[in-house]
C-alpha cells in the first residue's frame, strides 16, 4: 500500500503525482524529487551495458525513518517512484514489483490513447482508479 505514487517523465518533470491526502503532500513531493537523483545514479551505473540488460525494477532507492522509496524505470526513461510507509513491514519486494508492473501496464494503456500527448499530465480515469487501489487507505 503506497503512500505516494509518482510518474516522472524522461525530462524529470512529474506526469502524475498523487499522495495520500491527509498528510503533508509537499513532503512527499520533495521526497520524490530527491529520489530522482538516486534513480539517475542507478541508471547511469548500468549505462555502458545495453539497455536490454538493465532491469526495470530498481528496488529500494533509499529508506528514511518513516518511509521507504522504491523506483522503477521504463525503457523510455519514464520513472515510477513509490513511497511506502516503513511501518508496513508486511510489504514484500514481490508485492512492490507487482505494483510497479501494474503501474507500467496502466501507463502503457494511457500511452495507447491517441488523445494523450506524451508529456502531458496523466488525466486518465482508469489510471487514477488503478492508483487509488494501490494507495493506502488512511481513514
Amino acid at each position, binding site marked *: 500500500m503506497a503512500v505516494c505514487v509518482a510518474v516522472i517523465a524522461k525530462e524529470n518533470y512529474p506526469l502524475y503525482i498523487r499522495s495520500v491526502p491527509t498528510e503533508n503532500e509537499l513532503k512527499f513531493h520533495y521526497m520524490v524529487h530527491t529520489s530522482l537523483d538516486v534513480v539517475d545514479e542507478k541508471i547511469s551505473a548500468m549505462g555502458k551495458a*545495453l*539497455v536490454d540488460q538493465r532491469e526495470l525494477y530498481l528496488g529500494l532507492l533509499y529508506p528514511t525513518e518513516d518511509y521507504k522509496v522504491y523506483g522503477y524505470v521504463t525503457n523510455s526513461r519514464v520513472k515510477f517512484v513509490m513511497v511506502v510507509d516503513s511501518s508496513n513491514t508486511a510489504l514484500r519486494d514481490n508485492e512492490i514489483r507487482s505494483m510497479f508492473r501494474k503501474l507500467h501496464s496502466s501507463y*502503457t494503456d494511457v500511452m*495507447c490513447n491517441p*488523445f494523450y500527448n506524451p508529456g502531458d499530465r496523466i488525466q486518465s*480515469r482508469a489510471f487514477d482508479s488503478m492508483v487509488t487501489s494501490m494507495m493506502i487507505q488512511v481513514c
Partner: protein
Amino acid sequence: MEAAAGGGCGSGPPLLLSEGEQQCYSELFARCAGAAGGGPGCGPPEAARAAPGAATAAAGPVADLFRASQLPAETLHQITELCGAKRVGYFGPTQFYVALKLIAAAQSGLPVRIESIKCELPLPRFMMSKTDGEIRFGNPAELLGTKMQIPYLITEKNTFKRMDDEDKQQETQSPTMSPLASPPSSPPHYQRVPLSHGYSKLRSSTEQMHPAPYDARQPLVQPEGASTGGPGAKPPRHQTSLIRSFSVEREPQDNNSNYPDEPWRITEEQREYYVNQFRSLQPDPSSFISGSVAKNFFTKSKLSIPELSYIWELSDADCDGALTLPEFCAAFHLIVARKNGYPLPEGLPPTLQPEYLQAAFPKPKWECALFDSYSESMPANQQPRDLNRMELSIKDMADFPVPIQDVTGDDKQALKNTVDEVLPKDMSEDPATPKDSNSLKARPRSRSYSSTSIEEAMKRGEDPPTPPPRPQKTHSRASSLDLNKVFQPSVPATKSGLLPPPPALPPRPCPSQPEQASEAELHPQLNRAPSQAAESSPTKKDLPYSQPPSKPIRRKFRPENQATENQEPSTTVGGPASVAAAKPHPTVQKQSSKQKKAIQTAIRKNKEANAVLARLNSELQQQLKEVHQERIALENQLEQLRPVTVL
C-alpha cells in the same frame, strides 16, 4: 420488514424487502387479490402478513401474473412450490411476496431457491396490460430525477410508462419485460424517440434540456413504439445496471429486441452509419483503425480533448491503441451521445461492449448482405422510422461533414450511397491502411497514408478517358475473380460510391500528410518509386493511378515479387492502349473493383512488410546509437592517451 414466518407458510423464509419492493409487491398483491374481490393486503405489508388468513390472492390473477413474468412453466412451478402456496393451498401475502422475489431471482438468472431471495434483487418484471398500478409508483421520483447519470438506472424506474403504451406487445420475445418500464428521462430519450409517443408529456417535463428535434421526432416514430419488444429493451438494462454479473445472461435476450430505448443502445441506422464511417477510414471491416486516424476523425466532432480521451478510454477495451469495428461503433456512439448532451458514463455500458456489439450485429459484409441481416432482426415497420431517426440523428451530428438532406426515407442503398459519397471528401484525408492484426498490433499508430485532394481531383477530373489497364494484374495476382460477381450485382451507384474509398488507401505518391516519423522515412522511398511509375504512365489516372504506388512498394519490400512486379508495369503499359478502345466507363468500374481488391491485398502485405522493416529499422538505429556512443568514448580515451605517448 420481516414477514411473520409463522404466517400461512410454515417454514417461510424471512423476507427482507426494500421500500420499492414493498410497494411493488403490495400493489401486485392488491391487484391480484382485488381481482378476486377479496380484501387485499394493500396496507403495510406487516399488517397483511400479520393477518395472513384475511387476505389471499386468487389463484387466477396470480397465475396470470406469473405467466406474465415470462419464465418457463417449470420455473413457475418451482417458485410456487418454494413459496409455500402449494403447501398451504392459497397465495397469502407471504407466499406471494416470496414468489415475487423468486421470480425476480429467476429473471436475474439466479437459481430458484430460497437462498436466492436473501440477496438484493431487482424488481420482478411482468408483461402485463394492466400496469396502471405500477405506473403510479416509482415514476415521479425518477422522472424528476434531472439529468440522468446512468441512463439505464433511470430507465429501470421509468420503464413501466412505456409498458402502458405498448401493452399490446405482450408477445414480445424478450422475457424480461418490466411493468416498471417507462419512457426514459433525458438521456434515454435520445434513443427512445421511436417509443411511446404517448408519454411525450411526461418526457418533455423531464427532458427540457433535450434539443427540440427529439421531441419533434416523437410523433414520427411513435407507432414504432408499438412494435416489438419496445419494453423489452430496458428491463435488461436495469438488471444489468444493478446486477452487472447477470448482464451476460441478459445479452442474448437483448438481441431479440433491437429497440433504441436507451441512449447507450445503438440503433440499426446508427450502426450502419458507423459502419460506413469505419469503412471510409478502413475498408476492411475486420481490421483496425489506427489511433492517429481515429484521433483525427474524432477530433472533427469538436469535443474537448479530455472528453475524447475519456471516450477512447471507455471504448478501446483492449487498450491496444486501435479500434476494431465494435470499438469504433462504441466510441462513435459515445461521441454522438455526448454531443447530444448526455453525460458520459462511468463505465462502458453493456450495450456498447465489444462482445455485445459483435453478437448483436454481425460483422458487416458488403452492403447487400448487411442490409439483409439487419432487416431480419428489424420489423419492417420500423425501417422508415428508423431512417427518419437516422436522418435526424445525422443532423445532430452536424459537426461531422455528413449530408443530411440527401437522406431519403426508404432506400437504404441511397442512404448508404450518399453517406459513402460524402465521406470520401472529408474522411479521405485520414485513410487508415488495412492492418493485419498480428503484424501491426505492435505499431498501432503506424501508417496513415493520406490520399487526399490530389488523388480525388485526378480521379474525378479524368475519369472517363483512361480505361484502367490493370485487369491483367489482378488476374495474375490470383485474387478471386469473384470480385466481378461481387461488384456487378450491386448498384452501379453503389459501386461508384465505393470507388472513392479504396483509392484513398494507397496514396503513396502524395504523402502530403505524413503522420509519424517512421512514415516519413518510408514515404521518401515510396515517393521515389511511385513517381517513377507515375511518369511512365502519365495518362493513367483514376484507378490506374492507385496501382503504380502499390507496385513500387512491393518492389522495395518484397524482393521475391520483383520479377512479377517488373512484368506487370510492362503489361499494364501495353494494357491501357488496347483497353482504351473498349468501353471506358463500365470497364473502369469492373477493373477498378478488381484492382481495388488487389490493391487491398497488396496493401495488407505491404503493411506487414512495413511493420517488420520498421521494427528492424528502429532496433538497428538503437544499436547504431549505442555503437556511436561507444565510438565516441573510445575516441576520447584515445585522445587522452595520445599526449602521453607523444611525450
